[in-house]
């Protein structure tokens, strides 16, 4: 046994974002609760119907308990796993299997962070382990930079190709009212940006913003009675191969090469069936690695794949259509925002709506390219 998934039996019935960009005067749990309230309303439900809570907050290790208390709920199941920014994809996997088993009925998955208004730095309780900390790498930027250095060395990838990722993200953001970073951004702008940890410049890094998101999941038969079209979960798979970058088995292949194929197998689709792709772009190198590991191009070809605006508006593959962590928002943990954007694309309500989306992929990353988790969503036509 193993690898079984209740394909299409559960669905996203409600979703919301709140406070993207700057949200001064709000605490993290207030932001998460507001997004939760909006998502429950979007599902046409009452908060009291929620019987399972999944949440991560940057500043509260026991956020699940705090969230239950804040909402006045007594959930049958509460989870605040700590697999980094991919935690929410794991939440979806857990929620789908538990919903299908009848263990729970109505799931709220939420996140909120005020790291921009609260201090302006990446808000995380995480850092380098005892074997890396004495050498003072920038955490987490230097870890991703080391992986990028190998990708450059092995495949001839260039800073210009990384810059393509940032420029494409900005182009999507420029037409998304929710996105925080707007305005022109050229390849040369990225190449001229201040170097942080080579080959990663400040323009190769995700934003530091506030923001909250939430989704409501329930069984698909029930979701059909909700106001918005249900967004069935076709597959959800997580993989972990290491934590510290020095222990990553191969710096140019992430565990997305495992989570992706498992999620595809559950969903009964392949990369060619995916209409729109949302990837956790904490750094520009992430997008190249995940495009390769999730099968959109061969290993090592990520840099060449994204050239000439290929993943931007009008390109060959729409990637990070909200502007991504690079230009839309990055409130510390971004995974849930990729799921919301993928679900909006299925619903047909995204700011940068792609025509005829039946299959959308949301991929989360946690730690130092460590935790990888892939969720595949479908339209009603896929089940």
């Amino acid at each position: 046994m193993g690898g079984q998934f209740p394909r299409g039996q559960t669905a996203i019935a409600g979703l919301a974002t709140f406070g993207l960009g700057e949200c001064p005067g709000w605490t993290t749990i207030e932001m998460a609760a507001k997004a939760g309230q909006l998502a429950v309303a979007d599902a046409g439900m009452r908060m009291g119907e929620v019987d399972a809570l999944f949440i991560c907050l940057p500043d509260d290790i026991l956020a699940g308990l705090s969230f239950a208390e804040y909402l006045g709920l007594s959930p049958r199941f509460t989870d605040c796993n700590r697999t980094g920014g991919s935690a929410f994809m794991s939440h979806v996997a857990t929620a789908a299997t538990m919903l299908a088993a009848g263990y729970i009925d109505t799931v709220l998955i939420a996140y909120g962070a005020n790291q921009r208004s609260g201090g302006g730095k990446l808000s995380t309780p995480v850092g380098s382990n005892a074997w890396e900390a004495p050498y003072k790498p920038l955490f987490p930027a230097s870890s991703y930079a080391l992986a990028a250095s190998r990708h450059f060395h092995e495949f001839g990838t260039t800073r210009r190709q990384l810059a393509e990722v940032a420029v494409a993200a900005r182009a999507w953001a420029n037409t998304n009212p929710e996105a925080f970073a707007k305005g022109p951004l050229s390849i040369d702008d990225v190449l001229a940006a201040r170097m942080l940890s080579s080959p990663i410049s400040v323009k190769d890094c995700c934003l530091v913003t506030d923001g909250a998101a939430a989704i409501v999941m329930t069984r698909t038969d029930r979701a059909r009675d909700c106001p918005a079209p249900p967004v069935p979960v076709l597959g959800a798979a997580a993989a972990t191969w290491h934590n510290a970058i020095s222990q990553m088995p191969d710096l140019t292949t992430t565990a997305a090469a495992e989570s992706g194929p498992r999620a595809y197998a559950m969903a009964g689709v392949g990369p060619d069936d995916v209409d729109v792709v949302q990837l956790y772009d904490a750094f520009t190198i992430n997008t190249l690695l995940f495009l390769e590991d999730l099968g959109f191009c061969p290993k090592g070809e990520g840099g060449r794949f994204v050239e000439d605006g290929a993943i931007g508006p009008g390109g060959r593959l729409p990637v990070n259509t909200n502007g991504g962590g690079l230009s839309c928002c990055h409130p510390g943990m971004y995974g849930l925002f990729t799921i919301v954007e993928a679900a909006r694309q299925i619903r047909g309500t995204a700011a940068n709506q792609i025509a005829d989306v039946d299959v959308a992929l949301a991929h989360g990353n946690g730690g130092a390219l460590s935790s990888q988790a892939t969720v595949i969503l479908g339209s009603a036509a896929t089940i």
Partner: protein
Amino acid sequence: MSDDTAETGPERHWRTALAEGRFLLQRTRASGTVFFPPRLMEPRTGDDNWDWIEASGMGTVHAVTVIYPKPPEPPRAVVLVDLDEQVRLMSEIEGIAAEDIAIGLRVRARIGERAGAPLLLFDVAA
């Protein structure tokens, strides 16, 4: 070395040896696999029948990033080194400009000191 009555965990043993000037690795008897950082058992297999061995100290730069702090602090490099024993670790290379460090550079381990604590560092191998 798999004696359950050992006085400390492997990490303490490794750090004590480093303070005494010895750079240790662990090697599984059956497979000959060398592993680091110190663990109770070989990763993946769980084989706990292993010995401490002295590292050769020789290695090759596998990956490098140069960090650019605000001036006047100079750029500094952080590297991943592949030891000849086929284990990888993070470190620094002293005695060479950060921007001159390239993947493939041969390096030799040295036990230095930072903030009063022994620390594994590398020099360019002659």
